[in-house]
């Protein structure tokens, strides 16, 4: 997926709603292994590898944006 396609300029419900309906079939699910990626820490500016979050205990990940 191109960066400009991921960061759409116009919200289209007809494009986005099917993804919500299909989420139950998304192959990542409880019992599976969580993938880890490097994320930028807004406060510190450094990098956090996601697996560090659950290294010592459970981690709650909420995904979202201001809008």
């Amino acid at each position: 997926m191109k960066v400009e396609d991921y960061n759409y300029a116009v919200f289209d419900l007809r494009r986005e709603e099917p993804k919500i309906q299909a989420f139950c079939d998304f192959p990542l699910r409880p019992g599976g292994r969580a993938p880890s990626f490097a994320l930028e820490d807004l406060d510190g500016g450094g990098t956090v590898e996601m697996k560090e979050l659950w290294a010592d205990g459970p981690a709650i990940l909420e995904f979202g944006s201001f809008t």
Partner: protein
Amino acid sequence: MARRYANRAVRSVFVYTREAHPGESYRHHTSMDDKRHHARAFKEHCRVERPILLDDLAGTAHRAYGMLPNMTWIIGRGGVIHYKAAWTDRADIEAALNATLDGLERRVAEQLAPFHSERLAWRVRDMEAFRRELERAGPQAVSDFFGPHRED
């Protein structure tokens, strides 16, 4: 909630994705600086105390986890997925977290084994409050969502 569970080694973070409803005031990201600027505004406006972690501009983590606008996942120690939710509802998350922590604490003594289950959950959908949030993003965000194709 994050503070209440911090003493049980539970970490809670907000992963910042693309703008779900871009508008004139908060446009789609064309750079990481855009993302940082929006995330700081979000942190200040919503008084977010949890760490905010930024996904890359391509949305690599967001896409790997399903690419929905406001999902919540609970990951157990070592990386096993315990909870997957299409939307974020505080009560539902808390119930799931308590079940996870309870099971983890009891599993050895009571010879518990995890199993997969699925159910539908409920969330409040306040369309007037949502419209106000879209208005903050800009008139385009409102018209893109509440345009002629919407029936409700």
